[in-house]
């Protein structure tokens, strides 16, 4: 009798797939509220400032000029980066380009180079290169890997049976690419494009070094020169509006499309398209991209390192900076990915208005320049939580706010590629909801999570402004040291720090590349 009762399936009031959704929402919302703190701070500061002062500070020629710069930068850079990354991804993943594997590694490697080191490298070679053209050129070089990585991963995950099917329906290779491949890459391209756009809006070091004024550089300048937050806050307000526009454009283009495979079965291995006579001419594109993204930094760095000799290697200072940087990166990366997990799962598995709103909050929050995040956290901790002022906890929160979308994009993409049916299949094999989730989606999405940690750690290693303002007293990360030295025009002295940032970013970049391959099961 007892055994009969024990064997009976337990009755639960809610279907299993709804259990846990509420708790997940709650966590996601709490994190979103934290993330929105800096934004709230900007609006609060605006309200305190009052409309009259605010409009005086916003509607002036200087702001118009900044607006023009920022808009031109985004409007040119994002599409160029999208096209470049898509073509490179197709060439390395789906064509018989010579040494395709090699090029695909080299297209990811620039991720290891902080954006401001790119401009340091360019002005090292071409000291007169300034303004918008320089801003666009360096941004494309610095940011195309952010798009290359998700697009090449998505290309590997496409089901080649769909392309075969399209060919049997009379489509030439070019038409198959346009009508079957490209639509399926849409989400990766848009997601990556949004990320790049947000970076363009938030980056400081890259543009400060080439003296190209964007809203972000102007805010930092304002803040540093006057310590009077009001003008900076008003500029930040305009910047927030730019981010809103970017998010709206992205949401409008994205739509609500599912991209898991429908049918059963495992995708066949893809075939590579033969480039024929174009095989060698096509090499020019990866060669050019890699020359600017890797060759230029390598040239400048080696020049300064040779010029500086042994004198620039002050090991005690360098060792301390390195240790502090690594600890901060690891803690921050793990915390950021953990914070992204609830919303990543919700936005794929329970997509709703609510999950999109929460997700939008994270994007919006992360698009705030580091200086605004830092300013907000400084003000808030000083006013309401003084014990947290200049502690590791505060700086980790700042990183979470800034880098959550990096973790979110890789997590979401890999969760979306795991068909929901797998979770259900695992449940039908007698797993509890949590274990079903663990056995299927979490396992299969683990590469995405690892990529999330790596991507956000990379971001943290290269982060400068917020780190400078929030770091506990006595902290000096590699990026802080690098920036301090270049500000003193000690380009040779800064070179070891740049080299170390690159060297320590490389394993994470390699991991990222490897994991993005493993998602595709190879």
């Amino acid at each position, binding site marked *: 009798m007892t055994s009969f009762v024990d064997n009976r399936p337990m009755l639960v009031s809610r279907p299993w797939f709804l259990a846990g959704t509420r708790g997940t929402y709650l966590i996601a919302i709490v994190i979103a509220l934290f993330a929105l703190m800096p934004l709230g701070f900007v609006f609060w500061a605006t309200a305190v400032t009052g409309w009259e002062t605010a409009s005086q500070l916003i509607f002036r020629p200087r702001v118009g000029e900044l607006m023009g710069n920022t808009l031109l930068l985004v409007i040119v850079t994002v599409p160029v980066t999208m096209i470049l990354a898509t073509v490179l991804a197709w060439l390395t993943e789906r064509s018989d380009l010579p040494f395709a594997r090699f090029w695909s590694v080299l297209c990811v490697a620039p991720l290891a180079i902080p954006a401001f080191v790119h401009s340091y490298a360019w002005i090292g070679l071409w000291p007169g290169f300034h303004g918008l053209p320089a801003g666009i050129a360096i941004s494309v070089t610095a940011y195309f890997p952010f798009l290359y990585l998700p697009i090449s991963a998505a290309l590997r995950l496409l089901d080649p049976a769909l392309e*075969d*099917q*399209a*060919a*049997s329906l*009379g489509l030439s290779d070019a038409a*198959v690419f346009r009508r079957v491949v490209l639509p399926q890459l849409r989400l990766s391209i848009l997601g990556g494009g949004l990320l790049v756009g947000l970076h363009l809006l938030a980056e400081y070091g890259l543009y400060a070094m080439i003296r190209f004024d964007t809203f972000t550089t102007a805010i930092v300048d304002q803040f540093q020169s006057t310590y009077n937050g009001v003008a900076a806050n008003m500029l930040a307000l305009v910047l927030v509006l730019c981010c809103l526009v970017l998010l709206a454009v992205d949401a409008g283009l994205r739509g609500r499309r*599912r991209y898991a495979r429908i049918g059963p079965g495992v995708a066949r291995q893809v075939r590579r398209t033969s480039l024929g006579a174009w095989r060698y001419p096509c090499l020019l594109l990866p060669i050019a991209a890699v020359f600017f993204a890797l060759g230029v930094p390598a040239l400048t760095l080696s020049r300064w390192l040779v010029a500086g000799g042994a004198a620039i290697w002050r090991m005690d200072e360098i060792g301390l900076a390195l240790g502090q940087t690594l600890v901060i990166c690891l803690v921050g990366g793990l915390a950021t990915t953990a914070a992204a997990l609830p919303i990543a799962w919700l936005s794929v598995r329970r997509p709703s208005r609510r999950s999109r709103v929460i997700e939008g909050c994270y994007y919006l929050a992360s698009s705030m320049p580091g200086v605004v995040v830092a300013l907000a956290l400084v003000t808030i901790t000083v006013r309401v939580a003084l014990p947290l002022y200049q502690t590791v906890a505060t700086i980790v929160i700042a990183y979470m706010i800034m880098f959550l979308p990096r973790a979110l994009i890789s997590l979401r993409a890999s969760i979306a590629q795991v068909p929901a049916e797998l979770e259900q299949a695992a449940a039908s094999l007698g797993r509890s909801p949590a274990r079903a989730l663990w056995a299927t989606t979490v396992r299969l999405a683990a590469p995405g999570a690892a990529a999330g940690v790596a991507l956000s750690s990379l971001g943290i290693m290269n982060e400068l402004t917020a780190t400078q303002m929030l770091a506990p007293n006595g902290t000096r990360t590699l990026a802080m040291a690098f920036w301090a030295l270049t500000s003193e025009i000690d380009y040779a002295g800064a070179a070891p720090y740049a080299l170390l940032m690159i060297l320590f970013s490389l394993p994470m970049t390699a991991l990222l590349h490897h994991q993005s391959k493993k998602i595709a099961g190879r």
Partner: protein
Amino acid sequence: MSFVEIRALRKQFGPVTALDGIDLDIAGGSRTVVVGPSGCGKTTLLRLIAGFEAADAGRIAIDGEPVVDGAAAVPAHKRNIGIVAQDGCLFPHLSVAGNITFGMTEDAAIRQARAGELMEMVGLDRSMLTRRPDELSGGQQQRVALARALARKPRLMLLDEPFSALDTGLRATTRKAVGDVLRAEGIATLLVTHDQAEALAFADQVAVMRAGRLMQFGPPREVYGRPVDPATAAFLGEAIILPATIGDGHADCALGRLPADVANGFAGQATIMLRPEQIGLVEGEGGVRAKVAEAGFRGSASELRIVLCDDQGITLTIEVPSSRDLPIGEEIGLQVSGKAHVFA
């Protein structure tokens, strides 16, 4: 000359020989079914015909026009061959209408009208045209995939286990609907299936493959009744295989002296095959005596395993109407109708 002509077609994947010299002829407008154990190369054959994979050697000609000749091949998009795969393979980013009109080159209005016609042809409601593929059942997806393949009026239709994901009832109706549409359009069809009943019901010609080779090719009755070897016989249904002595147009075996389909006066030892439905029961004391060893109820029929009284080493599986209730141990009399098939 036949509509599709396949000659000495070979394909290797590294060390695996997927196709080991296939010769096959398909008549215009006919239905050919390819059967064979898993991994014998059926899908590979279809993919070569469709142009998704390059052959190592051999020729394929369609309507007299060579599409594969050794290494030279017409690309898939110029062959005008429709294919429906096991999972339907609908484009997930397009609606049902978008899927069906995908390969059409006519004006939008004509395409839309034709999409509606095709939906009706495959037995689906026009209102489904606006749905997404993942809002359809498996059977509906298969029908949309068929409509999409039909939209371009292909010269040849390739079906790779298109019904295997469907349940039995839906499978039969979908198969019939698909078969009727293809017949009405006069499109030659090549169907791959694991299901022997499906194969025999659908086919004008059955092709049996094993390990990359074509073992037998002929009308279903012929292949079922006169298989080339015991393995082929077993693949197409239950078979009773017995040793026998052949002579004088007859076979002497454990079931007595049976008329055999032996040609040109062969005499000597051979293996013969009978189908279970050839064996009936006789009332009373006559016939070959046997005892019931196991009985399985199958609804309209019962499946009996019986042991011959004269030769305890021989057990047979036969079917009897289930209205006859035969307990285990009961002695019965057997009678064979039709001819025994002698394996050469």
